[in-house]
C-alpha cells in the first residue's frame, strides 16, 4: 500500500505502448489471416507421428474513464490493454501430453509486452483418478486464475478486479514445479476434481507485483530484485449432481516472498530487504442453467511481514455475476464486486477511498464469428484502492467514477 508521501512522478509511456500494441495486434491478425483462421494440425515428423496442435489469440482493448486513471492512462483513453498468446500441444506416447504456451501482455504499466513462458509441461495421466504434470504449469485458483489472458473464455472485458487483478498475472498464473490432478467419483453425490501443486514462482520485474512495490516506494528508492518464492497450494471442485453446479475451494501458501530495494543517500546506496509470507484462500460457486451462467467468488489474502515488529495486511475481495446468452452471437452479463484493505496496510492509508473499491459492470459480447469476438462494457466504480498508480492519480476523492471498456479478440 502507499501513502501520499510516497508519491513519485514517473515518465508515462502509455501512448507509445498503445501504438506498439496496436502494431503487434495487426501483425498477429495478418499472420492468422495469411494462414488459416482455425487451429492448425501439423505432422512435422511424418504421417505416423503424433499431430502437433497449434492455437493462438490476440486481443486489443480500449479503456476510457472519468475521475481517475485505472489500468493505464485511461482518463484520456488508453490502448495499453493488449494480450497475445500462442500454444502448441501433442501426445507423443499413450497417456502422455506435452503442451506449451507463450504470452505477452500490456496492461497500463504492467507487462510491457515482455514474452512470458506461460506454461511448458509434460503430463502423464495414470487414470481418471490421478495424473501428474511437471514443468512450468498453470496455477489453478478459482474459476479464472489460469485463463486470465483468455478473453474468449468469459463474457466480460475485465474480470472482477477485486478477485482477478489484470496486472498480477505474472505472479499468480504460473509456477515452476509439479501438480497432481484427477477426478474422484462420489456416486450419487457427483464427483470431486482436485489439483495439488508445489514449486516456485518467478515474478517479472515488469509485472504487477513489481509495479505495486515501486508505486509504494519513496521517490529516492529503487526496486532492485524480487526473489523466486516457493509456493504450495491446491484447488478442489465439487461437481454436484445438480447438472451445471460446481463449488470450489482453493488455498495457496507462499512462505517467504522477498524484495530488495535501495535508497540513494549522500554516502552511497543503502539496501533494504523486505520479507513476508502470504496465505490465500478463494471460494467459488458456478451454476450453468440453460442459457444462464451464475458465478460468485470470494478471496482472502493475508500478507504477514516477517520483520520485527511483524505486521499483517489483509485483502478481501468478492463478486457475484450473471450472464445470459441470447443466441450464438449475442451474450450479455453484469457483475458487482467489492475489494477492501484491512490490517496494517489500511493504517498507512490517509485517504478513505484508498481502503476500498466497488465496481458495478454491465457487458455485451458479440461473437462475430467462432474466432472473432467483440465486447462493450460499462463500469461505475466507487473507491480507489486498486488504482495503484500514484503518479497518474495524485489526488483521491471519495467519489464515484465511470469507465467504458472495449475489447476485440481473434483466435485460431
Amino acid at each position, binding site marked *: 500500500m502507499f501513502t501520499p508521501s510516497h508519491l513519485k512522478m514517473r515518465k508515462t509511456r502509455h501512448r507509445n505502448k498503445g501504438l506498439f500494441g496496436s502494431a503487434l495486434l495487426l501483425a498477429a491478425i495478418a499472420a492468422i489471416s495469411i494462414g488459416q483462421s482455425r487451429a492448425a494440425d501439423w505432422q512435422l515428423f511424418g504421417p505416423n507421428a503424433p499431430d502437433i*496442435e497449434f492455437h493462438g*489469440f490476440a486481443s486489443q482493448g480500449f479503456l476510457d474513464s472519468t475521475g481517475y486513471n485505472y489500468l493505464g492512462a485511461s482518463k484520456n483513453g488508453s490502448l495499453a490493454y493488449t494480450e497475445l498468446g500462442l*500454444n502448441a500441444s501433442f501426445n507423443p506416447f*499413450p497417456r502422455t501430453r506435452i503442451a506449451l504456451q507463450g504470452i505477452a501482455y500490456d496492461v497500463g504499466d504492467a507487462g510491457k509486452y515482455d514474452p512470458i513462458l506461460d506454461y511448458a509441461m509434460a503430463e502423464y495421466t495414470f487414470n481418471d483418478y490421478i495424473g501428474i504434470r511437471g514443468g512450468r504449469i*498453470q496455477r489453478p485458483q478459482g474459476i479464472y486464475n489460469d485463463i486470465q489472458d483468455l478473453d*474468449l473464455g468469459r463474457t466480460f472485458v475485465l474480470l472482477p478486479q477485486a478477485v482477478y487483478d489484470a496486472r498480477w498475472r505474472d505472479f499468480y498464473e504460473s509456477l515452476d514445479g509439479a501438480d497432481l490432478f484427477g477426478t474422484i467419483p462420489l456416486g450419487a453425490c457427483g464427483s470431486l476434481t482436485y489439483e495439488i501443486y508445489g514449486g516456485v514462482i518467478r515474478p517479472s520485474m515488469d509485472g504487477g507485483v513489481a509495479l505495486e512495490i515501486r508505486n509504494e516506494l519513496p521517490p529516492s528508492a529503487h526496486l532492485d530484485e524480487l526473489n523466486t518464492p516457493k509456493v504450495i497450494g491446491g484447488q478442489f471442485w465439487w461437481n454436484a449432481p445438480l*447438472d451445471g453446479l460446481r463449488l470450489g475451494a482453493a488455498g495457496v501458501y507462499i512462505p517467504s516472498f522477498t524484495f530488495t530495494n535501495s535508497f540513494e543517500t549522500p554516502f552511497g546506496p543503502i539496501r533494504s530487504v523486505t520479507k513476508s509470507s502470504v496465505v490465500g484462500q478463494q471460494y467459488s460457486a458456478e451454476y450453468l442453467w440453460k442459457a444462464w*451462467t451464475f458465478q460468485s467468488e470470494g478471496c482472502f489474502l493475508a500478507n504477514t511481514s516477517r520483520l520485527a515488529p511483524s505486521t499483517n495486511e489483509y485483502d478481501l475481495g468478492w463478486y457475484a455475476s450473471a450472464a445470459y*446468452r441470447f443466441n450464438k452471437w449475442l451474450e450479455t452479463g453484469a457483475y458487482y464486486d467489492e475489494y477492501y484493505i484491512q490490517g496494517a496496510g489500511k493504517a498507512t492509508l490517509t485517504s478513505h477511498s484508498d481502503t476500498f473499491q466497488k465496481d458495478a459492470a454491465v457487458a455485451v459480447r458479440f461473437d462475430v464469428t467462432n474466432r472473432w469476438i467483440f465486447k462493450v462494457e460499462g463500469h461505475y466504480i466507487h473507491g480507489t484502492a486498486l488504482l495503484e498508480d500514484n503518479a497518474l492519480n495524485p489526488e483521491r476523492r471519495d467519489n464515484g467514477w465511470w469507465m467504458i471498456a472495449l475489447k476485440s479478440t481473434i483466435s485460431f
Partner: protein
Amino acid sequence: MLSLVRGLHANPPANVRVIVNEGVRDGSITATELKNIYTGRTNYWDGGEHVVIAVLSDSTDEALDEVSGMDASEFRTFWQRLVFSGRGEEPRTATDAGSLVELVASTRGAIALVPADVPLKGVKVLHVK
C-alpha cells in the same frame, strides 16, 4: 429435478449413435463415462489412446447438449478455456454428419455423436450402457 436426472444419466437421444475410430479398443461406454469425456474429465481411452472429440461446427446439436450439459456456444467456450490453460485439446469440427463420420474414421482416438440414419464407414459404434 429434470436437470438433476440429466446430470446423472447423460444418455444421448435414441436417434443418435456414438461412433469412434476403429482403433479404439473399448466396445461400450456408460452414460457417465460419456459425459466425462465431453466435459474433459476423461482424456484417454482404456488402451491409453488420447480421446479426440469431433463435433459439427456452427450448429445447434441437441445430442451434444444432452451429453455434455452445455449448448454449442457454452461447449466451445468451455473447451477454449481448457485449451488455453494447457488442460485439454480443442474438439475437431466437421461441416456435416457425413464429414463427421469421415473425420472419426481417419483420426486415431476420435469420438462423435451422429444421427442414427447417417451411413457409417470405417468407424465403430459404441454401445451406451
